[in-house]
């Protein structure tokens, strides 16, 4: 179980890096940026080691050979792989464009995912595969899906930055949109951060199994805290809206240009879209066809993948329409990634809750 040690190191490193990048954005001190990059690289290297170790452990345990034992079989492993791809993609962009300001927008995505893993008590155990999952198609499907999700996450970050830089008036729809999204993002980070701290301090081990997400805020047993959380959230949204323009001025100091952001957003989607189409939709369909004899059954997960696909097709074609290039398609890119998140989490957490009989 040495792998968990290295996973621990990488989680700490990414969360530290996230705070460093945000500090760097605020104060623009070069040494801080350098430390942030170093910490990120350390985190990524130890995560790589962790994934390889886990792969080895799984191969030993299952006795199924190296290829069938890729550690991508459950929510925890796949999310971890997503973070790995995202950080790799981010580092490539940082080096290509010699600009560290993106870090403050992309590392928080990694931080949120890692906190989510801890808070929901997603099982970290290595589990044997149920018969339906024993397929090479499935493996290719999951791997490629997560690579494309990471590419989409990058486009989300840069798309948001594009909107920040190009929205001038506070009443503009694009300004309202980006402050709303960033506000939600900030609220999630803070509430999950609070969850994380209280959960680490006082929870007894047996409660690990139960989801702890939002139990110290929106889902608190005390109605006072629940109301306070909602009020505080509204306040956060209002504050982000009120002072959001400051971010634009900050970004301008970092010599990022909207053109560059638009370019990265498009490039990420241009990489993500074909991989998603082939890995996410086509391989998924082939696997379903092999296992159950239906390549497409309109189940919620498939349908949400298709919705995501249409949103990114919208983005690609929207760029060709008069009056759409720029802000409008950046909004579509941001919405695209929220659809990705919903495909992966919302379908399991919300829809299955809605569909389950007699729960609640």
């Amino acid at each position, binding site marked *: 179980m040495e792998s968990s040690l290295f996973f621990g190191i990488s989680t700490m490193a990414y969360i530290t890096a996230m705070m460093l990048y945000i500090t760097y954005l605020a104060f623009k001190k070069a040494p801080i940026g350098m430390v942030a990059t170093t910490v990120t690289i350390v985190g990524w290297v130890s995560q790589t080691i962790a994934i390889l170790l886990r792969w080895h452990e799984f191969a030993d345990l299952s006795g199924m050979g190296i290829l069938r034992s890729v550690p991508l079989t459950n929510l925890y492993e796949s999310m971890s792989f997503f973070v790995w791809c995202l950080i790799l993609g981010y580092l490539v962009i940082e080096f290509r464009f010699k600009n560290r300001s993106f870090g403050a927008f992309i590392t928080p995505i990694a931080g949120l995912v890692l906190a989510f893993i801890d808070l929901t008590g997603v099982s970290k155990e290595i589990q*044997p*595969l*149920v*018969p*339906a999952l*024993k*397929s090479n*198609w499935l493996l290719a499907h999951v791997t490629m899906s997560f690579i494309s999700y990471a590419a989409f996450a990058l486009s989300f970050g840069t798309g948001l930055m594009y909107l920040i830089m190009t929205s001038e008036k506070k009443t503009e729809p694009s300004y309202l949109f980006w402050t709303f999204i960033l506000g939600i993002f900030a609220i999630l980070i803070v509430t999950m951060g609070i969850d994380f701290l209280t959960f680490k301090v006082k929870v007894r081990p047996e409660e690990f199994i139960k989801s702890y997400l939002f139990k110290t805020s929106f889902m608190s047993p005390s109605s006072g805290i629940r109301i306070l959380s909602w009020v505080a959230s509204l306040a956060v949204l209002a504050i982000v809206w009120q002072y959001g323009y400051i971010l634009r001025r900050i970004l301008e100091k970092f010599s990022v240009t909207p053109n560059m952001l638009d370019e990265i957003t498009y490039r990420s989607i*241009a*990489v993500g*879209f*074909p991989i998603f*189409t*082939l890995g996410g939709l*086509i391989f998924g*369909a*082939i*696997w379903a*066809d*092999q*296992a*159950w*004899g*239906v*390549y*497409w059954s*309109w189940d*919620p997960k498939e*349908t*949400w993948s*298709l*919705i995501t696909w*249409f*949103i990114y*097709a*919208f983005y690609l*074609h*929207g760029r*060709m*329409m008069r009056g759409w290039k720029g802000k409008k398609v950046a909004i579509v890119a941001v919405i695209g990634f929220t659809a990705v998140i919903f495909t992966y989490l919302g*379908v399991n957490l919300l*829809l299955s809750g*809605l*569909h389950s*009989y007699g729960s*609640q």
Partner: protein
Amino acid sequence: MKQEKNKSFIDKIWNFFASVRFAVLIFTLIAATSVVGTVLEQRAEQAKNIQVLSRIFGESAAPGLYTFFNALGFMDMYRSWWFLALLVLFAVNLIVCSLDRLPRIWSLATEPISPLPEETIKKFLIHKEFTIKGSMDSLRDLVLKAAKGIGFSCSVREEEKGLQFLAQKGNYSRLGVYLTHFSILIILAGALVGGEFGFKGFMEVGEGTVSNTAFGGGKELNLDFYVRCDNFDVEFYGMSDMPKEYRSWLTVIKNGKEVMKKSITVNDPLTYEGITFYQSSYGLIPNSLGNGIFIFSVVSKDGKSSVLNLRMGDSFQIPGTNVTGKIQNFSPALRIMNGQPFTYADMMNNPAVFIDFTEAGKHLFSGWIFKRNPETWQLPDGNRVEFDNYWGVEYTGLQVRKDPGVWVVYLGCILMSIGLFIAFFMSHQKLWVKLVQEKSGARIIIGANTNKNRGALERKIEKLASVLNSRQGGDK
């Protein structure tokens, strides 16, 4: 006059259907309506969706909303007329759009590259200009070779004051987008073929029995061959109850002859005459649990063995000895806790059989023998009873599918992958190199142009220029 007006009206419709704006509208409509279809459970009982609606909108609004959504076909929306109409519009849009643009793109892709005057070459976003020493003949070879080095094979034109080199590559990559669009039509066509001529159903076949009937969608499909289930088995991880593999041994029988045998698992189906059988479920044949056949391999301590098929209450002899066993009890899923045996499940998770052994009427020993635990097969006196199977009690549930369109769909998927690869990772690049003769050498003007990924071409041109420059130094 009237005719012209008519034409412009048709033109308007055509242009509307050919527009990307309309495409984006369709994307939005398909995506947005699909969302509703994931919230409301499709083809579910009424009560279920009323519950879903009341969780979102409250108890009082739910029944009214249900009636509303139901009237609009949202309870089975992916088969509703309006969703199919959206898909048809989508296809029409794709066809019209492609027909509209294809001639222009085709000529862009097939047009030969033509020489350009100096001023035009200099206007390209990627261009270079410098002088270079050497005779025209040596420069000619030099440029051809250097261009080859970055992947362009040039044709050369003689001009008044020198030479012009021309090359283009990846011109057909312009068609990648059309391949992508076309593949969508193929996939839709494949789905249509499957829906029209295909069949989806389910059949249960008990161990040792045959079937040729599958049920699905209120229809009954009679195959002109039989499927026999020779055996069904669940394999577990270690001693746990976590299933590792479901496996059915099937035999296809046509006109009384066995024509095919295969053991299928969840990801490995059997296909015969275009009909595919998938491992999908399993269960116990009703009232069969006590009437199955025990299959034992009995091995005496000096190595004599025989395979026995027995029923509950039967007795058997261990070969070469006087030891007799009698089957007294059976459990499909036995666990022994604190010395107390009990049955913990009604499926065949851990079959065990209780056998009483005697020799010449004298009681020897008795105990439980587990199918999944070979240690229990060994008897105290050195003989062995291997519990191979308890047969004839389980059925296998097979998903039966006939889909002549699936290969069309797969073909579409392959085309789409190729099309997307071309559309995003290949580009149509053009190169012009002009040599203008001067006193001791030539002025060289390079221009290049691409329809996407300018950065990559820029790097190539940098390389070309540096090769030309350095070679020239070497020649001196």
